[in-house]
């Protein structure tokens, strides 16, 4: 048995405009858990996609179990014992767990009809052997995220994977589910499996891996043993300079009077299930209120409810003496509520419109741009767009460029510029730094704090707990569609926060420990 399960030598992969992998060497020892660490865009997922056969490398060699392979498709990779669990699950929600797992390797009766029972039996065997409890007969859309991930892992094992690639597995898990995952990985390791863990989280890389390889902008910076390194050292390797861990959040001055009052809001999600079960919030001027919580507890729906994009079934939303309950997006925009949406491709911009036309999205009916229904001031639009582009440093050839031709960071800059220049009284920022590079992330956080200083009530919804802690003046924890706690970020205990995010309450036995 060769020492290395997988060796990748000199891998080069190019895409139009960017070299994602620039001559990468990577080696996975048999039976180890190897972290692949790097920022967004460093090339980690691309490298593993090459290994899994989703991409063909432009140059380089791949050696699996001692034998070289060049161009192959995922079906071959599966045959060679490589399994991949993607960041966005490759599960069909409408089908059952068993149907999802057996896809491509379906057991049959007399060669034609599906043998569902045989598949279920086999799945349950794996489930027990690796300590990954799942219900094989349930439909995937009914399962919580943690269980869906277990399904994905069993799916890989079902196909005979010896080498597992996990892409950002902890992005959607609570702290306790992360612990379960760690146990599962150790169990897999004891059964002889080798694992690659793609992550951008320093703490988890050190906590879960044996060795860590750091990528930056398509190159390998180095490979270290987890026990010999520190978060600071890894961060430096990832980013290449002394990382400022915190944006300096000065104390906000200015009266913190109430800007927006949310009382007892309930709402349903896209499937018609109650997702918000009674939200009470007060947004204050000169203050950033951060919403901390694990994905799936209603944050996305909360953002939509507070901007008029989702109807409520109970409760009231008021802005001083303006009652916005039951109104649509138009009313919220007119009342002065700005929105940096979580999905800039779907919500934030019309991708096929020019920047010029996107700059007035939401403001198209304002007198400045359209004095009456029969006339839209083209020159005013152009001038305004140019002003936003200049003021917010949006890199683009012209105001007539289509939004889809801009990079993510520049798209977000346009959106922020657009929303900020509305001079709103409230701004709802949902996942504002998602998909941006370090420079972009810093910029967004600075803008949010600047708005706070100018008297805007800022609501920040983010999956990144560090971000929420760093930027907010107050933190509200959302769990199961309710606000379960409000804390001061400077004095809160991370453990306590994690428990609140996971279970909605504090257990009595937990001793209070210092924040690490």
């Amino acid at each position, binding site marked *: 048995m060769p020492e290395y399960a997988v060796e990748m030598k000199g891998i080069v992969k190019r895409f139009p405009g960017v070299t994602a992998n620039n001559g990468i060497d990577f080696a996975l020892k048999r039976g180890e858990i190897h972290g692949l660490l790097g920022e967004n865009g460093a090339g980690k997922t691309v490298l593993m996609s090459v290994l899994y056969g989703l991409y063909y490398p432009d140059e380089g060699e791949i050696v699996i179990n001692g034998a070289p392979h060049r161009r192959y498709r*995922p079906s071959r990779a599966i045959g060679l014992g490589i399994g991949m669990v993607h960041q966005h699950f*490759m599960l069909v929600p409408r089908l059952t767990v068993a149907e999802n797992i057996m*896809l491509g390797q*379906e057991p049959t009766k007399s060669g034609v009809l*599906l043998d569902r029972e045989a598949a279920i039996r086999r799945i349950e065997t794996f489930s027990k052997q690796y300590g990954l409890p799942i219900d094989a007969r349930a439909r995937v859309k009914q399962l919580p995220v943690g269980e869906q991930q277990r399904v994905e892992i069993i799916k890989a094992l079902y196909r005979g994977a010896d080498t597992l690639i996990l892409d950002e597995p902890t992005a959607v898990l609570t702290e306790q589910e992360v612990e379960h995952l760690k146990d599962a990985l150790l169990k897999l390791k004891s059964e002889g499996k080798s694992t690659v863990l793609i992550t951008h989280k320093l703490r988890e890389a050190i906590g879960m891996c044996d060795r860590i390889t750091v990528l930056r902008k398509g190159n390998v910076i180095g490979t270290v043993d987890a026990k010999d390194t520190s978060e600071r050292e890894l961060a430096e390797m990832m980013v290449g300079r002394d990382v400022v861990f915190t944006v300096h959040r000065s104390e906000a001055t200015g009266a913190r009077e109430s800007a927006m009052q949310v009382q007892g809001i309930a709402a349903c999600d896209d499937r018609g299930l109650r997702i918000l079960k009674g939200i009470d919030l007060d947004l204050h001027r000169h203050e950033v209120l951060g919403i901390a919580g694990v994905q799936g507890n209603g944050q996305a729906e909360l953002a939509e409810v507070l901007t008029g994009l989702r109807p409520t079934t109970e409760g009231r939303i008021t802005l001083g003496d303006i009652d916005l309950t039951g109104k649509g997006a138009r009313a919220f925009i007119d009342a002065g509520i700005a929105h940096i949406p979580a999905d800039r491709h779907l919500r934030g911009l019309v991708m096929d419109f020019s920047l010029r036309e996107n700059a007035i999205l939401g403001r198209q009916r304002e007198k400045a741009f359209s004095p009456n229904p029969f006339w839209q001031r083209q020159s005013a639009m152009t001038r305004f767009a140019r002003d936003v582009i200049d003021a917010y440093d949006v890199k683009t050839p012209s105001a007539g460029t289509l939004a889809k031709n801009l990079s993510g960071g520049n798209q977000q800059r346009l959106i922020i510029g657009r929303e900020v220049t509305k001079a709103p009284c409230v701004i709802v920022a949902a996942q504002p730094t998602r998909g941006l590079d370090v420079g972009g992330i810093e910029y967004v956080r600075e803008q949010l704090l600047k708005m706070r200083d100018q008297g805007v009530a800022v609501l920040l919804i983010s999956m990144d707990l560090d971000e929420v802690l760093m930027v907010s003046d107050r933190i509200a924890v959302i769990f199961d569609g309710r606000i379960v706690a409000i804390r001061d970020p400077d004095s809160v205990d991370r453990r306590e926060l994690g428990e609140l995010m996971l279970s909605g309450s504090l257990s009595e036995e937990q001793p209070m420990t210092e924040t690490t």
Partner: protein
Amino acid sequence: MSIWELLGDIFTIHLVLATLRLATPIALIALGETYSERVGIINVGVEGTAVLGGLVSALVAFYTGSPWIALIAAVLAGGLAGGLHALWCIRFRANHVVSGIGINILIAGLALFITSAVWGWRGTSSYSDTLNSWYIVGAMFVLIIASQILIFRTKWGLRLRVVGEKPEAADTAGINVHRTRYVYTIVNGMLCGLAGAFFFNNVGRFTTGMVGGRGFIGIAAMVIGNYSPFGALGAALMFGFIDALQMRLQTYIPSQFSIMLPYLITVLVLAFLIKRAQVPAALGQHYIKQ
């Protein structure tokens, strides 16, 4: 005439037989569209493909004298049209609906041209020998049952459903998404070609008005039948019944009204009886692999 005599006059065994006959092409087209949309390809070109099936039937029957060879040719021609649509949608990333419209327009033009060129009459062919169209009715039932089993109880059915719901999941499981889409769109075309052959064998010749919007009614039937073969059959039988009924009613009410009936009923059914159906999640989206 009393009300009972009236009803007895209308509801006869002939009505049942007519229902079956009129339902058959709709069921075939609905079945075909079920396959196509289940893998994510919208095909509104089914109307034109059925016309093509009828045209090719007439052409080949005319030149070979054998309705059976004509049948096979019609099915193959339909498959060709389906393949062309798939090519346009998959390889050239055309908007699915627009491509289907294009096929309809193209075939409509070709039908006029070919009938003029071959027979000298615009839009009509000469009469040829036909086979008993009841064979096709029987084939339709067989195909429906086989399809129901295929889609929901076999591994190919599981795969094709996944391709339409979440092509990325199918791709990472090693299934060739593009090939699956080509295959089932061609199957769609073939079933439409068969429907066209049915129209031909019913009448004995090809006329451009033959299909008369039944391709689109087939799409409506598929929606009402909730993307399953049995559902498609049920909806098709309903439409067949209405169509048979309106022919019978023509002796009692003005013909223009009874002809309108199937189309009107389609609108009403869709307007009031349809809840949000189980549309395949990846329907109409281009799947782009790196």
